[in-house]
């Protein structure tokens, strides 16, 4: 009510909620959106194992592994600190500009590399919090049975840690999906860039709404799916406990 009675409502409605423009621009933006889907799918495939690797490096015990731990910390600090859009710009414009023939010049490639670098840093912290949330007595029990540090990690600690961090992992995955829109700054025509093009052509903001709709259509089912996964896992481990 407050919104629809605001003085600018009619202008806003005309600018953002034009049904015809929505329908007209939808197919183009949808096809551009496939690029976003490809970006976050390809990136996530690399992020999940790479982040786990970084988190495991940080959990290595003893002074022997100090250099590896330090390296992992430096990496995570650096790439969580630099704004994603800068990493994308630096790699996306900078690497092809080097003109090295053996280096891929595709901006899609460098966009994926940038997203992987940034999100691996975030996701490694998520894994790490999961690893630290597993009580040390679980590790003691595994080691006391004669399992090595690696085996205890692989069979006892990580399976429990990963289960616990599925919700925050999903959270970062949604963040990644949205950040694929930043790749548009390289000139790659993904959903946001396409919406911008349509906006300039029609002088109407409705194409942005189209792009927003597409992102939401992906993230909501994903959130429900994760809820279902978590509920199923919980049921498996403790069903009958209260019965």
């Amino acid at each position, binding site marked *: 009510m407050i919104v629809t009675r605001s003085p600018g409502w009619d202008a806003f409605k005309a600018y953002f909620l034009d049904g015809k423009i929505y329908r007209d621009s939808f197919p183009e933006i949808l096809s551009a959106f496939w690029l976003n889907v490809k970006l976050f799918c390809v990136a996530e495939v690399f992020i999940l194992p790479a982040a786990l690797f970084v988190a495991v490096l940080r959990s290595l015990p003893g002074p022997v592994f100090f250099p590896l731990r330090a390296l992992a910390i430096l990496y995570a600090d650096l790439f969580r600190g630099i704004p994603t859009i800068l990493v994308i710009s630096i790699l996306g414009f900078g690497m092809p500009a080097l003109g090295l023939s053996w280096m891929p010049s595709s901006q899609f490639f460098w966009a994926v590399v940038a997203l992987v670098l940034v999100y691996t840093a975030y996701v490694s912290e998520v894994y790490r919090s999961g690893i630290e949330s597993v009580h040390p007595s*679980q590790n003691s*029990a*595994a*080691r006391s*049975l*004669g*399992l*090595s540090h690696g085996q205890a990690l692989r069979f006892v600690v990580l399976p429990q840690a990963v289960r616990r961090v599925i919700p925050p992992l999903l959270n970062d995955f949604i963040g990644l999906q949205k950040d694929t829109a930043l790749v548009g700054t390289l000139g790659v025509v993904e959903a946001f860039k396409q919406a911008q093009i349509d906006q300039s052509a029609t002088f109407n903001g409705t194409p942005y709404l189209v792009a927003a709709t597409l992102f939401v259509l992906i993230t909501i089912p994903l959130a429900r799916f994760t809820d279902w996964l978590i509920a199923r896992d919980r049921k498996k*481990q403790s069903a009958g406990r209260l019965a």
Partner: protein
Amino acid sequence: MSEALIVEGVHKSFDKLEVLRGIDLTVGEHEVVCLIGASGSGKSTLLRCINLLEPIQAGRIVVGGVEITARNVDLDEIRRRIGIVFQSFNLFPHMTVLENVTLAPRKALGQSRAEAEAQTTVLLERFGLADKRGEYPDRLSGGQQQRVAIVRALAMQPELMLLDEVTSALDPELVAEVLDVIRELAAGGMTMVIATHEMGFARDIASRVCFLDQGAILEQGPPAQIFSAPREERTQQFLQRIVDAGRL
């Protein structure tokens, strides 16, 4: 009688807190030694040191003729020979009973799945847990969980078992089933070092009882002597408090 375990002059500190102040203890094969003493006297720490879960600052520990506190020993190999059961069970919650028990034989000893499962089935049957093999730990009672934890340690066929207050976290009516398992192990000739607050049980099962006080073994002897005629004043005081609490 050959020695299964020799502990010599073991000191252990956590930062500035000295928890073990020179422990000397010898355990013969097939012997059952009970460690008694107040909380904080060092019983659990001693067991954790024998299993090398805690590094020691001084002294040496020899298990089955091998000095396990020497440098360059393979910790994992040593831990395979020594079973430990904890107060809080520490079963792996994401694995079934069968998976909990077969994990170490398969991964640390390299047994095949069939081999490990066959051996585990025999153990589970022996301790009345055969019908629980597919259950997750959360679905078991405390007594059942602790019995599974004992079976898990036994599956490695250890030459020495360390039991760390294994009944302290259990409801009173569940204590007996766990103590029965330990009695059966003792009857089968298993060498054990048991930290316990169950004095009646210690009196029944122990070949020797050690009273720990402030990180040292103050007095040790056969249970009949320790429980009826303790020589040290602090042992008397400790046992008197137990009697007053109606626990002996």
